[in-house]
């Protein structure tokens, strides 16, 4: 009786010890990776803080104004009668100043207007109708 129960309890004890050891190991593992992740998150947060500060620093109105003036030839708004827009169709087509070696990025292959001329945009009823038709699948 003693032999079997003694043997049994020894095996159980060893087994429990092994399970306990394994559990403590895995808990330590998990804690380690948790603290690693927490630290990584802290670092990321700090980086985001620094980057967003830099973003606001680089977007200072003074700087944007200077870049817009030097880079794309924009000017400060002025209050002259001619420059106040009363009618949306009177807005001139944006002019990209010609810079040597730099071609303006464009979605279409239409060249930007070279001068500040007013462009007469005609309303094309036919084109609009055909567009509608193509959207409707030509059912009309």
């Amino acid at each position, binding site marked *: 009786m003693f032999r079997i129960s003694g043997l049994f309890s020894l095996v159980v004890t060893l087994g429990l010890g092994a399970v306990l050891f394994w559990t403590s190991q895995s808990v330590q593992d998990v804690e*380690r990776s948790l603290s690693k992740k927490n630290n990584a998150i802290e670092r990321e947060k700090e980086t985001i803080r620094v980057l967003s*500060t830099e973003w*606001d620093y680089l*977007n*200072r109105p*003074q700087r944007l104004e200077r870049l817009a003036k030097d880079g794309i030839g924009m000017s400060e708004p002025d*209050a*002259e009668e001619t420059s106040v827009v009363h009618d949306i169709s009177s807005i001139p087509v944006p002019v990209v100043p010609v810079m040597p070696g730099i071609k303006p990025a464009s979605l279409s292959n239409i060249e930007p207007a070279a001068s500040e001329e007013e462009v007469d945009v005609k309303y094309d009823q036919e084109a609009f109708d055909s567009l509608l038709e193509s959207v409707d699948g030509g059912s009309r």
Partner: protein
Amino acid sequence: MNLFQRRKLHMVGVRSNALEQARGRIVLMSAVFVCAYLLVIARSVDVMVLQGALYNNEEAHLYEAVAPKGEAVRRGDIVDRNGVLLARSLKTASLYADPKLVTAPKETTEALKEIFPDLQYGDLLQKLQSKRRFVWIKRNITPDEQGEILQLGDPGLNFEEEDRRIYPQGELAVHMVGYSGVDGQGLAGIEGSFNKYLDAGDEPLALTIDVRLQHALRREISNSIETFSAIGGAGVIMDVRDGSVLAAVSLPDFDPQQYGRAENNELFNRVSLGVYELGSVFKIFSTAALLEETGARIAQKFDAREPLRRGRHKIRDYHAEKRIMSLPEVFMHSSNIGSALMGEMVGTEGIKKFYSDLGLLTPASLEVGEIGKPIVPSPWRDINTLTASYGHGVAVSPLQLTSAVASIVNGGELVEPTLILDGVRLEKDKKKPKQKTNVRIISPEVSHRMRQLLRLTVSEGTGKSADVDGYLVGGKTGTAEKPGAGGYSRKRLISSFVGTFPSDEPRYVVYIMVDEPQGTQESYGYATGGWVAAPAVKNVIASMVSILGIAPSKEKKRMEGSLLRYVKIEDQIKQEKEQNIAAH
């Protein structure tokens, strides 16, 4: 297993019992020891093999060293009304040395001197050779510098992480945002007055400032100062409905990151701390007082043919028309004589009460610590009432003037200036819901009349150069002589303009003041408000409408409407003269 098998050696009797007992004990003891050794072996395997593999990875070791700790409270951010950062605390490394661990002080000093050329060689060497265990080398260094020092690999050099206050917008709104010291203590502006709140590290503190408008205002004031060789300037943009300050500029200004290098002139806040006799812009208040208190009609005549004599005082007109003028004419031509007569009609008590209701005689209630106390004549004699009617003898801050004008044009309800968004106000360093004043200063009818008069001044009077086509700008010029030793000086002026738009339903008040402008060739030697400040206000309004996306009014409204009947405009005067000549 064979331990148990041995027990099969069978013995009998007393000896066998004793032997049995001894053997049992030995087996038990052995089992205990075996278990203990197994544990030791298991732990050894754990430490050397299992965890050892982990620690081979240096980075993992580094992470392990930084124990997860509770989030340290950091000083809160300050942002503008659109969430653009105005102030934020960032971690930076500060370099210190433990001289006992520095092996070669001379070489280390030379290497450090190369990285930080501004450090003194002698000082540095002395520090590194000292007997102390801790000396600061340089605080708040950049990551690049930190990298170079790590490359040196000197065991005596170490870093401590410290928070440093960063102001991404630089000097742009420095007099409102303020600045803080090396230890993070707020020293001025919102940083100073909300010090405790910011230290608690709650959500960011949002101001009513809009950095885009702030920039437009600063640019125009700065241009005016340059063009007219002035010594300084100030300006405010205010929302007339709730008194929120959209922009407040005081020039010259300084970089808050290096406030220690700023001069007193730059540190001085001209917007809310400086008080000035602002001149004719005060005619807005005396005229409103006349209309409100006496119910005077718009056709009321004022004799401005001769300078006004009261006792030993003589009041003259700057833009002398030398004729009998109606009330709108007095306003649009900015007649001192007419305004003094208006003040006299209202009476000393009336003017005093009206000015005090507008908050002109007590310090403003802005949330920054730098608030100037207005200078009020004491005792207030009748002659003071006359001079106060055209803005002399009473000195107020540009901020007070702006909020008083906002109270006049917004329909007649008092507004108090505020810098804190979300309708909260500073109350003993805590945020507390802002109370709307609901105090009526003038009736809506008088408010409407005042808008008409302001519009008339821009369309026909002294403020023509502030007109922005399509936006019905109204406003009033002000040119005051600065008091100094031996009375007022004709050379040292405070030239200002207060504009409001759109006049039919005002939303914004824009005020610009330029300190001691000098006339130029282009301005024919003039340095008055109409020449100096009005064009600047016009440019600010032009920028505002494009930044805020305000559409121009479609039809050309004649806001001044019925007032024109009581006014002789230039063409009329010319025509009359021609008719007179023809008649002779």
